[in-house]
């Protein structure tokens, strides 16, 4: 199992601030996904990045995949209370047994008004 380290583990900011969450690994992934999970719910996919160096934007969220496909970052501009949740990165690997996701422990984000 490839280990994914996420940082910071917890983040509490005020509405309007910017933030960046990191996801690092020593392993190379075929793709990397970011999910957001709210209390009492399952994770919901935000984005999939596949190509090294790839940057994807989803409204105020910017996702970047490292050139070596080992790390990724999520940047949120002008955070809003609705952004509160657990942000999980997951690295995907393909093998003879199929396609599997390895999740990091997540970054718990709290945005206060």
């Amino acid at each position, binding site marked *: *199992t490839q280990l994914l380290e996420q940082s910071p583990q917890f983040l509490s900011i005020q509405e309007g601030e910017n933030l960046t969450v990191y996801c690092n690994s020593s392993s190379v992934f075929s793709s990397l996904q970011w999910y957001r999970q709210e209390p009492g719910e*399952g994770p919901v996919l935000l984005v999939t990045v596949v190509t090294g160096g790839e940057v994807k934007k989803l409204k105020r969220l910017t996702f970047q995949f490292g050139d070596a496909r080992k790390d990724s970052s999520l940047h949120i501009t002008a955070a809003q209370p609705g952004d509160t949740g657990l942000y999980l990165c*997951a690295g*995907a690997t393909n093998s003879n*047994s*199929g*396609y599997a996701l390895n999740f990091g*422990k*997540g970054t718990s984000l709290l945005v206060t008004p």
Partner: protein
Amino acid sequence: EAGVAQSPRYKIIEKRQSVAFWCNPISGHATLYWYQQILGQGPKLLIQFQNNGVVDDSQLPKDRFSAERLKGVDSTLKIQPAKLEDSAVYLCASSHKTSGSTDTQYFGPGTRLTVL
């Protein structure tokens, strides 16, 4: 389109008891996953089915956990006997594509298990 359904949503049992969870994936999704998410951690894959066959169960504690997907649609995950460390949220997910490609996994709301 209906999402992934799971039941029950909550379950409290005593150690050494048995428990079963049920999952109904999105219609037409070939692949079904069971994850265990311990508080403060990310989901950990327990078992992956493609239709009614097991693709990966390398992280399933087979001495106490079992899962089946007999007709290739809904699935059950069973723990017998439960231990304190089994307290977690059990998430079911499904995806449309078969193995070998990055695909969107749709998660259910999970079953929160507390073992006393």
